[in-house]
């Protein structure tokens, strides 16, 4: 009998990919990186709407933080310019730091929420920041009646 709840590793080994859903970018706020919070119909039966929207909203918040124009970003820009951008050889930019936070968050979400439901989020960075790719897995040995 297949276990009902999947860990990430089990998902990769035992499940087969059924389809993929792509959450597109939302350009209503300009060229800043934001994703649409519209709930894809393919996920209707797999995950609660609120959880999905929560994930996308948090991601949008992270990207807004990365691209925030303000005092600290100007300071970073001016300091980098003053050193002829050599400082980037040894320092990580604010944007890169936030991207690391994002990938950690996505991994976290995958482990806690998405993998148990047979779904997998792909970091938008892997897709050129164009889409959030959600892979929907089917159980190979799923039985309609629960054990």
């Amino acid at each position, binding site marked *: 009998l297949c276990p009902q709840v999947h860990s990430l590793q089990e998902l990769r080994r035992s499940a087969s990919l059924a389809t993929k859903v792509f959450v597109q970018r939302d350009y209503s706020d300009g060229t800043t990186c934001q994703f649409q919070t519209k709930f894809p119909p393919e996920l209707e039966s797999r995950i609660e709407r609120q959880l999905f929207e929560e994930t996308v909203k948090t991601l949008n918040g992270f990207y807004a933080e990365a691209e925030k124009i303000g005092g600290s970003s100007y300071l970073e*820009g001016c300091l980098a310019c003053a050193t002829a951008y050599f400082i980037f050889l040894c320092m990580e930019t604010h944007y890169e730091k936030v*991207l690391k936070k994002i990938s950690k968050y996505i991994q976290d979400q995958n482990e806690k929420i998405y993998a148990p439901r047979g779904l997998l989020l792909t970091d938008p960075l*892997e897709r050129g920041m164009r889409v959030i790719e959600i892979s929907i897995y089917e159980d190979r040995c799923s039985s309609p009646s629960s054990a």
Partner: protein
Amino acid sequence: MSVMVARKKVVRKWEKLPGRNTFCCDGRIMMARQKGIFYLTLFLILGTCALFFAFECRYLAVQLSPAIPVFAAVLFLFAMATLLRTSFSDPGVIPRALPDEAAFIEMEIEATNGTVPQGQRPPPRIKNFQINNQIVKLKYCYTCKIFRPPRASHCSICDNCVERFDHHCPWVGNCVGKRNYRYFYLFILSLSLLTIYIFTFNIVYVALKSLKIGFLNTLKETPGTYPSSLTVLTVLEVLICFFTLWSVVGLTGFHTFLVALNQTTNEDIKGSWTGKNRVQNPYSHGNIVKNCCEVLCGPLPPSVLDRRGILQQEESTAQEGSCPRGPGTQEPPATQGPGQAQEGHSALSPQVPAPSVSDAELPEEKQRTPGELPVPSPDAGRAEH
């Protein structure tokens, strides 16, 4: 009997990237294919500065002040650093859509437009978005199979979609886009200052020497002797600086105007925001200082191309498709089995541009290729694009 697949060489993603770029230093450096004019730029800058430091500076440092060569050196180093940054970095290339994603978008387009009967031209693929209360159209790129973000454009020379595409500059041998515009601007600014500086001090040098031995004597010293070769070189430097001044300073002025209005060269050429029936620029903050700050000192997004990531090989026994970035990004390449890896591999192989290109796209792309035929005349700033 176990078969060990010995991988001779690690294949990195840059080796399989579509588009017409060249990569150096194992993917660390990214440039356009035609680099001839870039070498000319390097030669002119290095040559002129070498002559200046070797000859005029020695005289002027003694006669006037040792600060003169020091300041020139600072300007020179800054100009070279920004030039190399502009030329070698990723301008903001948007990677092409993988087959799954492209198919998904095609389905969406068909759902909106409906199936087109045979023989009829399909309607242009455009999505409308509202930004800051103004409607902006997103165009579909047939080569990259994506809807281009606003302000992005497809460079036909490099065959890539580039974010906030400004222009393709043959003088730096690369596209100028979101990620390297500030370096480009600082390069032309520092080059303008450097040119003015060298020009001025060459004039000062000739003036000082003339005061000592007379102007005519300065000019007509006998050939073959040490002072004569100096004069010829000085005149050469003055000529180079003179022609460079007109073009580079003009270009710097033009780009200062663009930065103040938060516009790109591409938008300016196409007249996207000018004219009565057009929308106003929705990206401008309305304030010159704010626009300048955002364009020159705003946050810098990292490259999404992952040129040095290791490409997943089907034959490899060890699944180590880890990108050198965060811990979380390891998962997706490693999760997918051989089928997925193959798909990823084939998606990265060079794609043939789609033969059916709508009329709306063709004239635009032709407009953007003045850089393809490099115009060496240093006159109008725009001709350099």
